[in-house]
């Protein structure tokens, strides 16, 4: 029994969990550049799902860091509704490999939209609706500065997104 290694492993797993939760707080606050600071330069981001209608996996969004930065910088030029997205996340599993400096995690999330002007602000503002649910499949690289996201696959169970969104989930 390795009585020394186990606390270290648990600590790393906790750090991974904390990084996922911190990422959600930054996304909820629309601090997208700070969110990207949690990601490695070779980070890749995808939103995927599976369509039982056409019986195919689908990728609905795919960007690297440069693409995400560009998308974020262009947000002010685009029309959107001004509801806020709130992510409720539970990290289900963390599998870390300290020797290789890598970890992966699976989290379940529900993303709510609190409306401001999505339909009729006089009536709907302040109402919170479930926007989508799914899982985060994350991969991390761990160095002396801690874990950094190198991959996030946002796999959606919800496939009817109605008016959609311009924001990362």
């Amino acid at each position, binding site marked *: 029994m390795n009585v020394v290694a186990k606390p270290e492993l648990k600590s790393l797993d906790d750090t991974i969990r904390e990084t996922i939760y911190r990422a959600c707080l930054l996304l909820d606050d629309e601090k997208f550049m700070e969110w990207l600071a949690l990601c490695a330069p070779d980070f890749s981001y995808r*939103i995927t799902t599976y*369509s*039982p*209608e*056409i*019986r*195919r996996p*689908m*990728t*609905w*969004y*795919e960007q690297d860091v*440069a*693409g995400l930065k*560009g*998308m974020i*910088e*262009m947000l002010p*030029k*685009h*029309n*959107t*509704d001004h509801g806020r997205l709130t992510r409720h996340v539970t990290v289900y599993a963390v599998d870390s490999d300290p020797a290789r400096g890598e970890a992966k995690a699976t989290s379940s999330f529900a993303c709510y939209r609190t409306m401001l002007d*999505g*339909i*009729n602000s006089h009536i709907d503002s302040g109402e919170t609706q479930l926007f989508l649910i799914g899982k985060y499949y994350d991969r991390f690289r761990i160095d002396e500065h801690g874990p950094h996201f190198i991959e996030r696959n946002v796999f959606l169970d919800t*496939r*009817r*997104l*109605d*008016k*959609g*969104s*311009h924001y990362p989930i």
Partner: protein
Amino acid sequence: MTMLIERMSYDNGEAIPYVDSRIYSDRGIFEEEVEKIWKKVWLVAVHESELPEPLDFRTMTLAREPIVIVRGSDSKLRAFLNVCPHRGNLILRQPSGSLTVGEPSGNANHMTCMFHAWQFDCFGRCVDIPRAKAGYQDRLRKEDIALKQLPCEVAHGGFVWVSLNTKVGPLSEYIGPAFDIMREELDTEPLTIFHYHKAIIPSNYKLWHDTNSEFYHDYMHYFNRATSMQQKGYFERQYTAFPNGHCTVGSMEVKYDAYQGAQDRVLSFPGMPRNGWKMVDLFPGATYNIRGSSLRVDTMTPLGPDRVMIEFRGLGLKRDTPDEQAQRVRDHNTIWGPFGRNLHEDLLGITGQGVGMQPGSTPRRILHGRRENNTIHDEIGMRHFYKEWERRIGRSPNDPFPETQTAAE
């Protein structure tokens, strides 16, 4: 309103045409549209690549009627009413699948109504009625029963077209030359689907078709302003109107790299310039839209005067390598996916119109009056649609209730 508006004539070539907002919100008009339009004409249902194998099926609802499309053991696609002739139950319940998978109530290779286990083959013939002789004696035999078969054709890029009207004429008569502008792109080689999603929007279906039928709203899209409106050729794009309410929009060379992070297209379709962009708008509610590397096809299912489901499909070439298809997917999603630059804005636009013209709101005039020699900001596409609408509904779009004194203001 002080501008020149002629009240009784929708589009006489001189005044500013408008429609009465009640055509977008009145329950009675909506019911007339379902009966006089949606149950009468050819409608785009699915793409053939969604049912590639014999005994594959795909279900949907057209004008409230549950439909199933089945690829037969002879590989031919057929459309049936997806309703059991016994007690009116829905037969196939999943959006898609294969009849080769047996159901708890029935055998593989059959369509089985789970309620009383009546079974039908891929040709719609009834092949089993449990305890038929005991219950019906000789008054009813399975040979006398079949699912109602509907007119079904595969055309224009491999799409499956269905009509609820068993007396409808050939699809070619309904479409006429409307697809000539896109013939080479669609029909040189097989296409395949890579994207499907749907949206339900609290708005009238015609407002989505209006959006697809006018480009003046490009002011809403920064992406289009940068890559198209500010580029050469944009204001020369031409609308062409065709019989039965269809119209097309001519191509231009889009400059994708004028938008930060976007790239000029690498892939295309046969006959299509890499950065070309052309559209076909089909009465009453479908649009084919090719931007260089991807074809987007919108189909609408009206759910009420103030509610519409829009299905969005993305397609490329069947022969694409996985890398090529991935590139088409990226190009498509940049603007047209549920997280894309343009689609979200378009859907917000008609959502706002749904608020402004909700059922019971005061009738008001909605202008359709831009005339620019049928070029891109001319609203000829909408006006052409509403002339066909008027012909089929028998009501004037700008004076739909002449029997009442209330007029749009």
